[in-house]
């Protein structure tokens, strides 16, 4: 498994895509820091990168890489190697390299320019989103043999989680605004990792705006130690779900 992981990582490094991704993140973070040295504004600008760009890159790269290493996987599977090992090493190789790229790209400017708690939380959230969307990419890839179709599915995932889902929530809030929606929205947010990541960051950044009744309710939940543990726990579950399902499909799949 370690050997497989090593070869997969080596493969990924050879494509230079992760290096490009790291360079992009470095450039973006440096310019954000230079634009405004106020840490709160830095976290805000980075938040958009983390919520939009990171999932998109992860999901596209994950899918493309899966299909590019199709032959490699076929070769490996013809050897006496456990299917699960092949899959896990592929997943870990992609996930780890993307996380590493993110941590280096965003972390180095943080070390140089300084960071506060909000930025550190952002770093953690970014790593988790990277893993979640890598998992989703693998899920899309194992669902179909057609690369173009798989990329279509991944894009759909991305659009759904970052745009359509919020639209649905807004619609529900509009339709049912006569009713107490606090618990419902709380649950709905849990069903979307991007929203959950956003709310975790909101608790760090916009505390003072969240002081109305609803805000206080969310603050009460997400701002507390328990809420933090729960929301990070749910993110963890979000990492595991696509991973688990894609692995299951992969094990039974006729490659």
């Amino acid at each position, binding site marked *: 498994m370690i050997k497989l992981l090593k070869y997969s990582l080596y493969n990924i490094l050879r494509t230079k895509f992760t290096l490009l991704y790291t360079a992009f993140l470095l450039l973006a973070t440096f310019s954000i820091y230079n634009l405004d040295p106020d840490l709160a*504004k830095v976290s805000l600008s980075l938040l958009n990168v983390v919520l939009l760009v990171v999932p998109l890159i992860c999901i596209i790269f994950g899918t493309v890489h899966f299909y590019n290493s199709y032959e490699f996987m076929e070769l490996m599977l013809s050897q006496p190697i456990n299917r699960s090992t092949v899959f896990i090493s592929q997943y870990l190789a992609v996930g780890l390299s993307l996380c590493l790229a993110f941590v280096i790209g965003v972390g180095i400017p943080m070390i140089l320019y300084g960071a506060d708690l909000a930025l550190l939380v952002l770093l953690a959230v970014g790593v988790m989103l990277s893993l979640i969307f890598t998992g989703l990419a693998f899920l899309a890839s194992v669902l179909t043999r057609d690369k173009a179709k798989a990329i279509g599915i991944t894009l759909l995932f991305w659009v759904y989680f970052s745009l359509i889902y919020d639209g649905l929530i807004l619609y529900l809030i509009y339709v049912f605004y006569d009713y107490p929606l606090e618990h419902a929205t709380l649950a709905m947010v849990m069903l979307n990792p991007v929203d959950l990541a956003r709310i975790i960051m909101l608790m760090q950044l916009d505390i003072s*705006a969240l002081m109305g009744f609803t805000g206080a309710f969310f603050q009460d939940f997400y701002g507390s130690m328990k809420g933090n543990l729960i929301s990070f726990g749910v993110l963890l579950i979000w990492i595991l779900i696509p991973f688990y399902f894609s692995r299951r499909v992969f094990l039974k799949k006729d490659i």
Partner: protein
Amino acid sequence: MINQINLTIPLTTSGKGYIHCFLWVFLMAVFIPFDLVGQKPKVLEVREGEQIKKAIEKAQPGDTIVVYPGIYREHEIIVQKSLTLIGIDFPVVDSEENGDIFLIAANSTTVTGFELINTGHSNLNDHSAIKVFDSNHLRVENNRILNSFFGIHISNSKNITIRDCFLEAYELSSQRTGNGIHLWKSDTALIANNFIAGHRDGIYLEFATEVETSHNIVEKNNRYGLHFMFSHDNSYYHNEFRNNDAGVAVMYTRNVVMEYNLFEDNLGSGSYGVLLKDISNSTIRYNRIVNNSIGIYMDGSNNNTFEHNLFRRNGYAIKLLASNDGNYLGKNNFIGNTFDISTSGMIITNELHKNYWDKYEGYDLDRDGYGDVPFRPINMYSTIVERIPSAIILWRSFMITLLDRAERVIPAITPENMKDEKPKMRPHDIDFKLE
């Protein structure tokens, strides 16, 4: 009959204060020669084991009573003649929860250097460490007032100086705390350099005019840091109002000047940096309004000027209800607020001019330092959140950002004319005169 006149004169620096002082000096110049025919002022000493009350009974108007260090278990010390009460090294006067400590109804009295503690609570009698009625030319200086219900309670008096006092109460429920400095129906006062914490309202003024409040630190009070009503022509400089339960609320008053103050950390659903209710013709300049749920909340306030203020990291920098008219907001800095301005109506008669908004994304082709396209500070989403509070859960999501962009280009549900025609490109360099 006036026997003696204390030579301490309340010095207020507000305009009319000076006139009062000059009048007073003039009157003294005329009357003192006749008056000095009486006996000379004496100095009476009170040491531990003796009673301040006895000394006051013995004293003649104009005398000085010096109280040496120690603990004096006394309450309701009534002062009905002009005396100067001086505590050396903070002698402690402990009411032991029995009620008022000093009750003053005499002109030209000074209380300085005491530690007054444990007045006990009574909503019926407003127990206070220092309670003053119908007294002119009063000075309360350099006292420590701890665990009192009301701290300094003044009614129907003139020419008052309260400075360098330290007031702290420890009760947690606002029912069991009184106001720190309470002025009712009084005029010409100076409240300066005091520290007030743990009371109901830090500074409370009602029907108090010509009051100058400066360099006070008011924090962690159970209700408002500063609360006034019907208190016209007052000025507030260099005060710090921090972390009070409901912030600062001022009402039904005109001609207020607030400058160089700090309003900070007032967080909560009913908490405001400054709440302005029916305030008119007032000037609010050079203030720092930082990290409040709502920086400034305005209702029914007309013709006020807000200039050179800093709004930083507030939930809402300004909530402007439609009942406000003719206010001018110019040259302020809005930095890092979640929402800059929200309003309830569609018709806006308030003016925004040359403010710096960190959310402005326009350009400056002619390089005059001001953007060429107007800035609309009202966020569409704040209007939605106003109507449906749960919607805050979607704040900062991609979709909301898109909707907001669209709204800024073509306003549909936000007032079209709420805009700054000349938004500044870089923050104003504001001198807050910080030491």
